[in-house]
């Protein structure tokens, strides 16, 4: 994977779990491990949304987590990209009818990249991050122009 020359800084990722089974969360952390090693591209997981460029959200949004997800999104500085990992955040997956879930993630915050799968393979997640990088570059060009 070759990063384009205009993207000269590293990509920092913040992960939010809005009530998922943790399968996608483990695949996200596994995607950062030495086997796939995206850290050579500068992609790393940070602990605070204020430092992050990319927001990874997993899980169908439970009622208790809805405000938290919204707050995290608002705390991030533009330009930002939101990635929804896993099928439960996109259409509910197995949890298609429930009383405590507030809908797929794009009902709560706007989503840019969708990575389907239950759980998606780490390669799929990295491909999603590559798409997110491309979109971020486009957004940066728009902001600077």
């Amino acid at each position, binding site marked *: 994977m070759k990063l384009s020359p205009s993207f000269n800084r590293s990509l920092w990722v913040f992960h939010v779990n809005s009530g998922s089974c*943790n399968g996608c969360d483990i695949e996200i952390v596994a995607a950062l491990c030495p086997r796939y090693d995206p850290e050579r591209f500068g992609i790393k997981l940070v602990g605070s949304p204020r430092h992050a460029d990319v927001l990874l959200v997993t899980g169908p949004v439970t009622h208790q987590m809805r405000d938290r997800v919204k707050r995290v999104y608002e705390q991030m500085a533009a330009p930002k990209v939101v990635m929804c990992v896993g099928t439960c955040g996109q259409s509910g997956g197995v949890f298609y009818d429930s009383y405590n879930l507030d809908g797929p993630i794009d009902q709560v915050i706007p989503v840019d990249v969708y990575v389907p799968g*239950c759980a998606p393979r780490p390669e799929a997640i990295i491909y999603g991050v590559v798409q997110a990088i491309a979109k971020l570059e486009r957004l940066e060009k728009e902001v600077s122009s």
Partner: protein
Amino acid sequence: MNGEVIEKVDFAPGRAHRGIEWMGMRRNPVQILHLCDRICGICGVHHALVFAQAVEQIADIEVPDRAYYVRTIIAEFERIQSHILWAGVAAHELGFDTLFYLAWQIREESVDVIEYITGNRVNYGIMMLGGTRRDITADMFPRLEQALQYYEGLLEKMVNLFLNDKTIAMRCKDTGILTKRRALELATVGPTSRASGLAMDVRIDSPYAAYGDLDFDIVLPDVYNSEGNGDVYDRIIVRIFEIKQSIDIIRQCMKQMPEGPVLAEEKYAKLLMNLKKASGEAFARVEAPRGEDMHYVRMNGKQEAPEMWKVKASTYSNQMAWVEILQGEQIADIPIIVASIDPCMSCTDRVAVVGQDGNAGIMTKEHLHRLSVEKTRRLQS
């Protein structure tokens, strides 16, 4: 909180409440089986296994012997990958990120084997009412044997890295102590209770699947540390030696596996028709990587969906122990103590800290993690 020391602990679960039991009461048992896989991503196959066992009791389905062994092998591989995952997370909470990456790299081998057997890394979808959906044939054994030898070669290294390290011993010994009596009263399960000296293991007490035929002993912290007192160090000991126990169990299974089919009823339509007529109540328990996992199912013969389904995940029983073991500890120790019970990660969202005169402040996970790492660096220097 009194300066750095915690005085009162409160715990508010419920962030990941998806209404699974309620959803299950509207679906037929085969659909529930696939829902069970996604109750938890790390111990999903145990949930599916225990639900299958409960429904097999109600509907009187006879599981073929070979299926018991296939179930056992898959369950033990899941235990290995869960314990190594936990070891990495514990190292990360202490600040040893290299050890975290090393542990997860080692874990990839068992995840590869699981993918070889079942077809997926997470959410295997391999349990079925009456057996398993795929077989482990004899030509697959060499690959399993290769993985087992890989882990055996690494066990010495893991014991050395985790248990003989001076900083880890300093941080983990005498921290987060849970006495045997309190562990019993608070109904803790799994490695948390075994580390406190309670000899509680569903595989030995009420054997299910193939465990009744196998020969293994319970893992208590005195295999390594004769002065155990139920602290975080003992929990690390129990989990690492359970990996060794799992390797041994899988070897015994591969040697003793009987021939035969792996599924009692191949046609799903017939299976569902039989289930529709089944009625009764039953419960089943298994030893998931985190502890005892229990499902209670009640079916009346009038509808496909069960009348009642109760899931008791293992962390459900262990969460009350947090209130007990965090008393009197320092804030910087919160991440490792919280992680030592091995909760599913979505539970460790946020911790509310109550001040001495009642004013509450909320510390984020990142802040606590930073405090923990700083303490390790201070001890190392």
